[in-house]
């Protein structure tokens, strides 16, 4: 691993726990881009963390270069950017536990689930497509 990980933000308030949300939708966040090189990955993670406070049925998918977001051993010292990859490990605390990674994307990049910093479900493209089909809301980053 690289530098000391930044502390994860505090978990969401449980202000809704007494009554529960009125509407529960299936949310899928689709991460398509490498963690650095553009800000999409970081700002997508910010939406996932904020969204967790809404008690929705959340899944997160990683496809294409998006699989690099979960790569172990990220070292951002050279590019002088914050290594935010440890935050993915905090998702579990936010009850964001359904993480899907596309098998073809991993294979094309010479990666396996062992290379990733969090446990994920590896799905082939068709199966991931079926997951997408089941969603109410798909946010693509």
């Amino acid at each position: 691993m690289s530098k000391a990980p930044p502390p994860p933000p505090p978990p969401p308030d449980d202000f809704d726990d007494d009554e529960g949300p009125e509407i529960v939708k299936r949310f899928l966040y689709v991460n398509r881009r490498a963690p650095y090189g553009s800000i999409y990955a970081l700002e997508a993670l910010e939406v996932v963390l904020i969204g967790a406070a809404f008690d929705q049925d959340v899944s997160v998918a990683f496809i294409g270069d998006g699989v690099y977001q979960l790569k172990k051993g990220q070292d951002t010292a050279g590019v002088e950017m914050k290594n935010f990859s440890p935050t993915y490990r905090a998702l579990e605390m936010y009850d964001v536990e359904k993480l899907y990674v596309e098998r073809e994307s991993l294979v094309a990049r010479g990666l396996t689930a062992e290379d990733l910093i969090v446990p994920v479900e590896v799905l082939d493209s068709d199966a991931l497509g079926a997951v997408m089909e089941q969603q109410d809301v798909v946010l693509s980053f």
Partner: protein
Amino acid sequence: MKFAIQVNEGPYQHQASDSAYHFTKAALAKGHEIYRVFFYHDGVNNGTRLATPPQDDRNITKRWGELAETHGLDLVLCVAAAQRRGIADRDEAKRHGKDADNVAPGFHISGLGQLVEAAIQSDRLMVFGD
């Protein structure tokens, strides 16, 4: 149908804001409801009143503001994205000790929760971006 709109790219650099604008306008013309337009990533740059595009070109910020005024649209700039990119309304500028604010009429700054809430409350979330 009730739509929420997400705009992920800045004006002129990318067509996302144009497409979102035309979609919004067409949806309203067909009698649909636009629950909210949420500007994220560089999309927050759509909300600066300091932009001065050439006079023979469309004024993306101004026409969003006009559409908002005509139809009572809720145009929200994400606060976290806006802070990074130097987009501030009067309150934000004051809070962070800045000497100027630049949010255009019709837009306002609010949190990411507004995006998630819009997705929950709407029938469809339309994402315009790269």
